């Protein structure tokens, strides 16, 4: 299953609903293009909802890191929402759980932006 994304606005925060796989190739490119497009349009409060992302490889992890740093470098914030157990485990073993701001419900994710 390839990756699909859809974005929506909630109280000035952009929620990006992702589904499928974030892996080398199409999945990583879609995520990269989506975040760049949002930042280009001035949307700098971004939540990646990964509830329906069932697989991420090392390239996908790299793309999440890239999205995080790119957003931060442009004065924005990017947070992760609703990690599956597999993705959560991956972020734990790579120590990235300490880097990302990870939320488990949308309302608190939206409220957490300054």
């Amino acid at each position, binding site marked *: 299953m390839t990756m699909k994304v859809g974005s929506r606005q909630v109280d000035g925060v952009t929620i990006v609903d992702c589904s499928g796989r974030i*892996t080398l190739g199409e999945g990583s490119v879609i995520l990269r293009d989506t975040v760049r497009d949002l930042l280009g349009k001035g949307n700098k409060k971004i939540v990646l909802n990964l509830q329906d992302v069932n697989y991420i*490889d090392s390239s996908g992890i*790299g*793309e999440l890191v*890239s999205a995080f*740093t790119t957003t931060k470098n442009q004065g924005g914030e990017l947070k992760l929402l609703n990690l599956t157990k597999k993705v959560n485990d991956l972020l734990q073993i*790579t*120590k990235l759980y300490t880097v990302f701001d990870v939320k488990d419900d949308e309302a608190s994710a939206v409220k957490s932006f300054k």
Partner: protein
Amino acid sequence: MAMTEQRVSYTLDSSLETIDSAEEKATRIAAELGFGEDEIMQISMAVREGAVNAVLHGNAYAPDKKVTLAFERTGEALIITIRDQGPGMDLSRIPNPLAPENLLKTSGRGIFLMRSFMDVVEIRPSSAGTELKLIKHVHGPTAGGKEASQ
């Protein structure tokens, strides 16, 4: 494809399709051998990362270079070998992705993930290419983890 009772091998192009194909084969074979769901995921992800290394970093997508993928079942383990025809991996340049200065790097986690998921990871670079061997031991039904055979 060449197959014996205990061993199956494939010769694959240096393409993105090979990476997905390698992962699918690993998932199917691990399931057929009776590994648990978590172990199947670990094996398939390790093979995917190995295939990424072979296609991208080894053969650099060169159309005249092939990736050889082999699965071998012994009584105690699944042994997976991935060979490329690249210049040979420089083992001294493999970073520690957990080091603070590397945490925000966008690459360099593939071998770390393989080592996290498999019981044995051996990398043998040479001028003719790199051979990667991944071993997952078959754990007993009540073993429930990595404490079983080494």
